[in-house]
């Protein structure tokens, strides 16, 4: 399916990441947003509020993030493509409903423009310390997809991907921006709507009937969704449920359901994966970096190559599910891994796990509030090569 031209602001623009994310959502077909203001994400919904009335969308500023995170799900079941937008403190409040979305397989996008944490922290400064929360923040087992853009252009492009993946896999997709990407202004090219691929809702092909199975999965483990109000008379619950959607309280139904919920992401991981690789062919040191840090390390790589050091960069664009296989492959040939993050160790642990002792791994941590100094990363690269 192609994008609805009404929402697509074709042309070259000079936009910040927050605004580009808004335009991405519009292009992706999002017409309903519920949100609650919080720095540094507010500009996304502010632009939504300005743009929506002209494209047939509705934005409601809710009373809090909890309301936003469940209202989008009501709207998703009402047939809309939806998102909510927040930053760390709001994300913490939304955790219960991320689990609800995962459990009920509700397609929806959560934008987190990360700031310095924990707690109120540094509201106007960048951080990348909500990455593990994105994966583990809600109680119980579930899987989500998380993308991490590094430029306003990607805030546009990947927001569309985020919506498409949420529809394709019926999971909450975490769009993990950060303050520096959100507030950074660059050229953003918005293509014609005919060049934008949109994943339509996986609408059920079944007819309404007494035996209708709301959660009968297709081959890829994802079930189709019914329209509301069309006679299916389906039931959606956050309780453990069978394929009809009815609550059943036992370990067998639990195993069947939750296993599928995690497997539909784990088993489709290679299809979901988006990575970027820079000069890995001959790299002795692999720098693994995502989001804004993946741009900072370009400078490190440049400085290193200038010194004759064989350094390459591996960037997971989709951070969750983590590109396990690729890291394992790289672990077979690289001499060392260096992982800079604006946190005190999060994705680093995944890299360390997957490298499994085959090469030294070094974290370059940073509390956030600013970006890494590329030279600090270089120092660690030099150390591991010594």
């Amino acid at each position, binding site marked *: 399916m192609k994008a609805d031209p009404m929402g697509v602001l074709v042309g070259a623009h000079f936009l910040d990441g927050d605004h580009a994310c808004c335009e991405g959502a519009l292009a992706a077909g999002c017409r309903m947003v519920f949100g609650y203001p919080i720095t540094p994400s507010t500009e996304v919904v502010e632009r939504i509020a300005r743009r929506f009335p002209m494209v047939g969308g509705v934005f409601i500023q809710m009373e809090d993030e909890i309301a936003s995170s469940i*209202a989008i799900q*009501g709207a998703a079941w009402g047939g809309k493509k939806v998102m909510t937008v927040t930053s760390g403190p709001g994300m913490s409040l939304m955790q219960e409903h991320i689990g609800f979305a995962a459990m009920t397989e509700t397609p929806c996008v959560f934008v987190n423009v990360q700031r310095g944490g924990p707690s109120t922290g540094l509201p106007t400064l960048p951080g990348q310390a909500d990455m593990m929360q994105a994966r583990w923040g809600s109680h119980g087992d579930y899987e989500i997809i998380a993308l991490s853009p590094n430029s306003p252009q990607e805030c546009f492009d990947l927001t569309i991907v985020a919506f498409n993946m949420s529809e394709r896999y019926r999971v909450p997709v975490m769009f993990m921006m950060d303050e520096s990407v959100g507030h950074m202004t660059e050229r953003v090219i918005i293509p014609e709507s005919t060049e934008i691929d949109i994943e339509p809702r996986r609408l059920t092909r079944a007819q309404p009937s007494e035996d209708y199975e709301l959660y009968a999965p297709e081959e890829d483990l994802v079930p189709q969704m019914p329209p509301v109000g069309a006679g299916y008379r389906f039931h959606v619950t956050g309780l453990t449920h069978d394929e009809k959607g009815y609550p059943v309280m036992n370990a067998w139904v639990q195993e069947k359901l939750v296993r599928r919920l995690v497997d539909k992401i784990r088993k489709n991981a290679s299809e979901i994966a988006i990575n970027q690789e820079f000069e890995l062919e001959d790299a002795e040191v692999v720098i693994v970096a995502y989001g804004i840090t993946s741009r900072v390390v370009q400078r490190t790589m440049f400085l290193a190559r200038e010194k004759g050091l064989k350094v390459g960069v591996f960037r997971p664009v989709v951070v969750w599910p983590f590109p396990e296989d690729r890291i394992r492959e790289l672990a077979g040939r690289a001499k060392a891994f260096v992982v800079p993050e604006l946190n005190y160790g999060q994705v680093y642990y995944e890299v360390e796990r997957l490298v499994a002792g085959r090469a030294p791994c070094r974290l370059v941590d940073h509390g956030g509030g600013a970006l890494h100094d590329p030279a600090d990363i270089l120092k660690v690269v030099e150390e591991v090569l010594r």
Partner: protein
Amino acid sequence: MSQGEHRNPVESFLRMDRMPHIWCPGCGIGIVVNCFVRALLKSKIDVDSVSVVSGIGCTGRIAGYFKVDSFHTTHGRPIPFATGLKTARPDMNIVVLSGEGDLIAIGGNHFIHAARRNVDIKVICVNNFTYAMTGGQVGPTAPLHSIATTAPYGSHERPFNLPFLAESSGATYVARWTTYHVRQLTKAMVDVLNKPGFCFVEAIAPCPTIYQRRNRMGDGLEMMRFYREHSRIANGADTRSLDIEMGGEIVVGKFIDRDRPTYLEAMDEELSKRLGNRYVPYPTGVKR
């Protein structure tokens, strides 16, 4: 026999494959279900245009038994879920059916804000004065001195007067009935199904297993008799006067019935006025 052919009207509205339901003997929730079915029948609404949204609790289980598109959400959040659903589908009739703990304790903020915004949803709150599902903790309407597992020596918290709270928050329709008042409760439900805006019906209901047992108030029948004997109908009463005391009179009636533009109507008006033809109109609601 002819009676064999006459099905109980509720059956076509319920997921009979899930019966028996979990509610205890003498529980009032089933009565609320009965009234709601009758209200649907009376109001002649297309059932497929109705969706039931519940939170978590004994009452919250209603969504699971009602054979319409139904949503059993998280504890306290049926109202914002319904807000999302309603906004996406203004043509549908969205009914929130949940307990007073769900709607007014953990969900209190959503309640007052949805009422303020006049979101076009119908909120029917089963008030059984306790958190029944979790075994009888003190709730936001638990009468002073009532016993609960978390108020084992008697509650010392002033309870909410729900109609007063609903009015002050902006609800367009506010009524209170007990499950003894089946006809009036049904009528109130017909009213709200036909009325645009945020409508609130408090349905006071027996919970013999948990609330009454702990407070030595007898079984369901005893409570229903109590309602019959101790409630006073006072339509239009000042909502300030509707406090409920342990063993005291229960004032019931329709208290508020006023007209205000719904959220989407107000939005439509504001945007049309300010944006003229740059505005792409969004549908505002059910044809009533």
